[in-house]
């Protein structure tokens, strides 16, 4: 008689995902290429408005947010889109795996992959002069961000198919990169645009990480915004998810 448990299924799927990610390690480094380039370039070439302090103090938390967005949202949405297109999701559906287990397994993979990227990015930032004062809020903010964007990746892959998912995820990546205060300060934007971008999870994530890395608790609007997405996105994801 076959038996598997929720725990064994989540571990099996997350372990397999990580195994493949480790084998294709160069791909993971490539996705880090752009964030590292932006971090080093704009820290050394002071052309973007980064507020009063050292550019790297503004940029490092923004770039870490960008990496989170890239691994939890873009990478996952594209992967899910392709897996669905290949009929791989449908094949998973005929195993005892349940929707929520699938979500948790993908989140677990994402947590590990982001952890690796965080260490690398932080090391580079410190090497070029970043001196963060880390608040205890940082791990909380990062978890909320990972949950929100993992959920959004599932939502994206559920409402559009394969290639569209790829295009949409990449487009959103660029838009959020420009608008969410990741590398550009939103204070320089017109008031109406600021009001809009403050509703985005990436804006709240960057804001809270910036506060967290300078040992402050962060703005209330940002906590509300990120918590809203971290609760809403997974709920929406498990509602919308289709195995086919």
């Amino acid at each position, binding site marked *: 008689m*076959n*038996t598997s448990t929720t725990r064994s299924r989540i571990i099996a799927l997350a372990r397999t995902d990580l195994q*493949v990610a480790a*084998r*294709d390690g160069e791909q993971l480094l490539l996705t880090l290429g752009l964030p590292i380039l932006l971090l080093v370039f704009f820290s050394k070439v002071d052309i973007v408005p980064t507020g009063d302090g050292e550019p790297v103090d503004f940029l490092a938390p923004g770039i870490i947010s960008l990496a989170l967005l890239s691994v939890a949202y873009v990478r996952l949405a594209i992967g899910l889109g392709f897996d669905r297109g*290949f*009929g791989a999701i449908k*094949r998973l559906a*005929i195993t005892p795996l349940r929707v929520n287990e699938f979500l948790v397994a993908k989140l677990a993979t994402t947590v590990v992959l982001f952890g690796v990227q965080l260490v690398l990015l932080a090391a580079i930032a410190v090497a070029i002069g970043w001196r963060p004062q880390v608040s205890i809020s940082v791990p909380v903010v990062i978890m909320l961000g990972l949950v929100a964007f993992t959920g959004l990746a599932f939502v994206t892959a559920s409402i559009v198919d394969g290639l569209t998912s790829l295009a949409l995820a990449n487009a959103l990546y660029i838009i959020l990169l420009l608008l969410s205060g990741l590398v550009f300060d939103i204070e320089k934007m017109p008031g109406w645009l600021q009001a809009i971008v403050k509703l985005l999870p990436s804006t709240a994530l960057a804001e809270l990480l910036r506060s967290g890395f300078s040992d402050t608790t962060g703005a209330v609007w940002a906590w509300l915004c990120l918590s809203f997405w971290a609760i809403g996105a997974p709920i929406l994801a498990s509602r919308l998810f289709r195995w086919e």
Partner: protein
Amino acid sequence: MPAIEVENLTVRYDRPTSGKAALDKVSFAVEPGQIVALLGPNGAGKTTALEAIEGYRSPSGGSVQVFGLDPATHRSELAHRWGVMPQAGGIPMGLTVGEAVRLFSELHGYGGNTNELLSAAGLSDLKKRRWRRLSGGEQQRLSLTLALCGGSDLLLLDEPTAAVDAEGRQRVLGIVRERASSGGGVLITTHRFDDVEQIADRVIILNHGAVAAAGTLDELTSGGQEIRFTAPAGLTVAELGAKLGCEVSEPKPGNYLVQTVPEPQAVAAITAWLADQGHTIGHLQAGTQSLEEVFLQITGAQS
């Protein structure tokens, strides 16, 4: 309890303009240890029937029960008891053969030895190869292997021999037969008559979404009111017809069709006539038709 019980299953697709039922009042059952084949031309509803049994499609009418449960609402429980091979289903991106088998055996909690499954499917040497680099036949055999990682009570296979070469096909059929002989029910869809003739205990011929014929292979192929034989081409069929008092024709050169009740006297008369003329006789078939003939009669008459 039957492994599968389908009663008056009706499935309509969501396109109201076509108004066509993809399946119309289809009924059949699969018992433990039995191999049942769904045979039919493309578009007959074979895959739709399987998907309803897998719980992907909710019936518009009738019912589907798998081990007494509704698959649409009990898929997770049933997933421990069945193994499913979907048509043209891929595997998660980037996985190798070995990784895929390990993943699916762990998801199912497969109790057996996966190396044995791989070697039975002839995939032992391809463990490190990625899905995308496998040939069509190898992908099919991997797909079957992943299905075998599932529960052993029921196997649902959608076109398991499609794109598989002759040797691979024998492996596939052998594996299926072995599963059934250890007590699992098997439902396969196919459009290959030789698959059905080799392994099926029961055949259900689907055409235009309805059951056109069902029974054991013997039931379906017996009862033909005709005798067929092969002999040199161009014999004077009218003379033989006059002698037998029935219609005789030559549908293909050297293939003769005698439309009479297949009694020993008729067979004796045919062989005597051939002997008189000094002709040899090749194949002689009395009272049975090949599955292909039955199938073509049924699907031809209805289209």
